[in-house]
């Protein structure tokens, strides 16, 4: 019965399309030290019950792309399965001498810098693979940097939906208004990944974002 075969074929194709679509590859991008891993860990802890990667006050702690498959997130009776992709982030310069101020030895610092440069290259390579991206920024810092412009510009060029997580809102003198003004086309959610502040709104905005993928 050819009709039945065709019907089944289409059913399978559409089913697969649906499944892949719901398995959203979600990338964490931003400058070094903005809290990408802290936020990725927060999502993992909230929904899987374990951490994803190591966090440090020394910049460039994440120097290889980290993956977490099958993270089911529920919101308003809807479930979406994510694959989380925590990246080393993007920088235009890396100076091993900066790491010496954190107490690293010269040899360690040079190794960290070398690995960090490779991490930036990897982060850029992976841009093409993302279904949606959370750009994590430090709310206490000036948002008008070339790195932020380059990241957003590349996501726009690839038509990848973007959510801006203005992180570290627990700090004093945060520039949330300035970040919102800098990125008027995007949803900006102020959060503290470390303290877990405003995560409800974050998840709500994340679900809205996924609709755009």
């Amino acid at each position, binding site marked *: 019965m050819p009709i039945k075969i065709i019907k089944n074929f289409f059913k399978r194709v559409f089913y697969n399309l649906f499944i892949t679509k719901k398995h959203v590859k979600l990338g964490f991008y931003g400058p070094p030290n903005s809290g990408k891993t802290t936020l990725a860990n927060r999502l993992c802890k909230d929904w899987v019950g374990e951490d994803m990667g190591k966090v440090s006050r020394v910049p460039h702690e994440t120097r290889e792309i980290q993956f977490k498959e099958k993270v089911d997130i529920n919101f308003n009776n809807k479930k979406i399965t994510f694959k989380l992709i925590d990246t080393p982030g*993007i*920088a*235009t*310069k*890396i*100076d*091993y001498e900066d790491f010496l101020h954190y107490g690293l030895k010269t040899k360690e610092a*040079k190794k960290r*810098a*070398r690995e960090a*440069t*490779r991490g*930036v*290259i990897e982060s*850029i*390579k992976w*841009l093409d693979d993302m279904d949606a991206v959370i750009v994590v920024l430090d709310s206490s810092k000036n948002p*008008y940097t*070339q790195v932020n*412009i*380059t990241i*957003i*510009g*590349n996501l*726009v*060029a690839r038509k990848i939906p973007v959510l801006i997580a203005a992180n570290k809102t627990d700090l004093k003198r945060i520039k949330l208004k300035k970040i919102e*003004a*800098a990125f*008027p086309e995007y949803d900006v959610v102020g959060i503290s990944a470390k303290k877990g502040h405003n995560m409800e709104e974050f998840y709500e905005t994340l679900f809205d974002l996924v609709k755009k993928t």
Partner: protein
Amino acid sequence: MKNITLQFIPYAEIAYISPYRRVKYLIDLAVDNRILLIQGKLAPEEEADLIQETMKRIGKKRSRFKGIELTTFSPKTKNLSFMQSFKENVAKTLLGERDVFTIVGPATIVREIKKDPKKIQLLLRK
């Protein structure tokens, strides 16, 4: 600061070469201690390529290269708010925007200039 030069790169000099060669050309000059004032603007993908190429050059033996500073600005929109010029910069992706300029410089040198802006005058006098 001795071996640094400021180099103006007119639009026509890099407009008609492939993006790949354009990025190589710029990074070679930056590694060679030049601060480049480029007429026009790189596309976001070229900016990403430039950053990748920059990363490959850091930490090479006998090189003190630590990366670049990259800035795009347009003199015309000087009086616009930062937000407006930011939006313009995101919207304008063509190298052919002649009223837009890009500065690419070695990070260590740009840092020195930021600390002591008088140094730029020394450069310009050469």
